[in-house]
């Protein structure tokens, strides 16, 4: 009988930090609240002709997906599930500005065609010639988590499904991203990213990135982690969050004692970081506590980075100092819990194990 466990066998991170450098103690610092991702060599993954027409979201998505598949030794997954909180903003902005500036006249369709939220998923299908299930979630900061939940469901209901490509992508755009200053999503004062979590002010910093994962029921020497569970929920108070965490652990036959390390979504916004504070002082007080948004900025699918980080910790057995929020130590953690929220909404929990 086939295993009903799910394994992450390939992964890729495109973010404001060059992939893997953090594990060598090297980090990029920025003194700005809107930080572009570090571009990998897109040309090695996408033909130059096609590349020219692509926005950053499409470039990052395709490249990240191809790296993840290659690592897992896959060429064509059975399904592609994408999460993007804000979609293809660059093309949206381009087409919208053309409409407004040209008073609806003389418009060309290219930007419109590529502005659709499922452009990345569709491009991946074409590129990989994958005609299977293909859905895109765009639900605020729970977009990537929604995609992962769908993948879990797919494996559960269809025993013939062997591999699913799941990822989260978001890009910066000039105007639409800058509007985040106007409604207090970004900090008013420009800050240096390593200081993000020490800043005692409202708002955060933002960035962009892509994180894809090749998930399969087959365990191999390539396996990074087992995906235990994902949950997206509404919560009004920190108490609701603690209760939900205990509830999800219990549903998976875990207790809080089984969790050795937590990766939290602290983003330096003093209006909402209390959700993490409460856990740090309470439920997670004896756990190794990590945060990452001071390296990656906060954006709608940044939790993909947290999953990438958990997988890397399992694989390398090391925990770079730069992520640590407390002094608790542990050797080779076996179970990691991730918790995230944005503006007090779209709370999510993910649990990964090194099995």
């Amino acid at each position, binding site marked *: 009988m086939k295993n009903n466990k799910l394994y992450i066998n390939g992964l890729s991170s495109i973010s404001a930090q060059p992939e893997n450098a953090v594990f060598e103690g090297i980090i990029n610092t920025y003194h700005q609240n809107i930080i572009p991702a570090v571009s990998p060599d897109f040309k090695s993954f996408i033909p130059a002709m096609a590349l020219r027409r692509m926005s950053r979201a499409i470039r990052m998505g395709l490249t990240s997906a191809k790296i993840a598949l290659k690592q897992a030794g896959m060429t064509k997954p059975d399904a592609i599930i994408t999460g993007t*909180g*804000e*979609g293809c903003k660059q093309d*949206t902005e381009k*087409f*919208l*500005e053309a*409409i*407004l500036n040209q*008073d*609806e*006249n003389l*418009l060309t*369709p290219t930007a*419109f*065609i*590529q*502005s*659709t*939220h*499922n*452009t990345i*998923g*569709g*491009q991946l*299908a*074409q590129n*990989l*010639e*994958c*005609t*299977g*299930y*293909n*859905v*895109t*979630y*765009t*639900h*605020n900061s*729970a*977009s990537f988590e*929604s995609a992962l939940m*769908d993948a879990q*469901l797919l494996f*559960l*209901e269809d025993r013939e499904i062997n591999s699913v490509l799941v990822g989260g992508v978001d890009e910066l755009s000039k*105007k*639409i991203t800058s*509007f*985040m200053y*106007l*409604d207090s*999503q970004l900090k008013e004062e420009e800050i240096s990213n390593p200081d993000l979590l020490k800043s005692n002010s409202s708002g955060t910093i933002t960035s962009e990135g892509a994180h894809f994962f090749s998930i399969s029921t087959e365990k191999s020497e390539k396996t990074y982690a087992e995906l235990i569970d994902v949950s*997206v*929920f*509404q919560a009004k108070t920190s108490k609701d969050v603690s209760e939900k965490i205990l509830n999800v652990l219990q549903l998976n036959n875990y207790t809080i004692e089984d969790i050795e390390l937590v990766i939290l979504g602290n983003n330096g916004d003093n209006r909402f970081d209390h959700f993490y504070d409460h856990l740090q002082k309470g439920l997670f007080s004896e756990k190794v506590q990590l945060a990452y948004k001071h390296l990656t900025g906060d954006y*709608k699918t940044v939790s993909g980075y947290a999953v990438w980080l958990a997988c890397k910790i399992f694989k390398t057995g090391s925990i770079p100092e730069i992520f640590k929020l407390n002094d608790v130590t542990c050797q080779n953690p076996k179970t990691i819990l991730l918790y995230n929220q944005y503006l007090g*909404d*779209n709370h999510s929990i993910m649990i990964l194990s090194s099995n």
Partner: protein
Amino acid sequence: MDKGIAITGMGIISALGTSAGENDSALIAGKTGLSYPEILKTIHSNLPVGEVKFSNLELAGKLNLPVAHTFTRATLFGAIAAKEAISQALLTKDELKGTGFISGTSVGGMDATEKYYLEYEEKNDHRRFIQAQHPGFTTSQIASHLNLEAYVTTISTACSSSANAIMLGARMIKAGKLKRVVVGGTDCLSKFTLNGFNSLMILSEEFCKAFDDSRNGLNLGEGAAYLVLEADDVLNGKPVLGRISGYGNANDAFHQTASSETGQGAFSAIKKALDISGLSSKNIDYINAHGTGTKNNDLSESNAILRIFGEKVPDFSSTKAFTGHTLAASGGMEAVISLSALQNDQIFPNLNFEIPMKETGLKPVSVLKKKKLQHILSNSFGFGGNCTSLIFSKNEE
């Protein structure tokens, strides 16, 4: 074969009316909802649209919203339609708390963005709509307005969004992940989409003629439609409007905006839906086609239908000439229309059809037709090669 997932409520707002009853009356009377843009301010006043003839202020009034609300037009539609569905299903306050909400939308709150984009930096008046541009915001607003507190998410796969939302809801109930869920989608007319489709040169200046040899494009529409799905063990004898017995999603993997001529994606989606339902193609009594009226879609869809059904193509029609193509909402709307057809044993006509297309010779039902219906196939296809088919079946007592 299992019974399928029970549907206990439905709600719709479209150019045909603001309730399922009003929509039904128009469909039965063969009265189109297509007109010309009045609420949407655009230079393209020559392009027919399926516009809901209520201003945002009037729609907000129907929901008793406070003055400084953050409901964009799609949110207003969504709240109205979902509310109707919930009230038909008679969900209690406690039940709503445990009910999920899965909504499809393509452009979310784009109407607000295009209105305020140039003033955001200068003026503070409408900055509360900045986040409303993104689709998830629309969904969260509707969920919180209606106190739906279980799993809430948004699917955006262009014109198949709400069909995929219905599919996900059915899958989650089948897997025991949810007991109750409201599923469907919402989209409003916007300059963004109207100009987008216009720049692709696939909008018709006439009322659309799906499956006609001389068809020359689609008409956009707007609105929302939702269904309430419930697990059998929580029905407690509640009336069941119909069941979702099959669903399938596949990707055409051919082109970002055009469908393959062979209709590969559509073919696979229909085949998967039939497989899930355990039905054979012979069991399908009627197809509510995607049938947008573009050269490309109708040919590709016809070819997929011919590949599945061969010589025995069941009765089919596109209802886009009633509502316009409501993009992400279309799958939800056509689910409501299919349920109404099932309940009353009648097929709504494909308006404006005259001459079968040369390539296939297929003739849709073009006048209201009474017929015993057991199983209906509903197709929704979107950009990005996204193809989804759903099968709705009569509830067996």
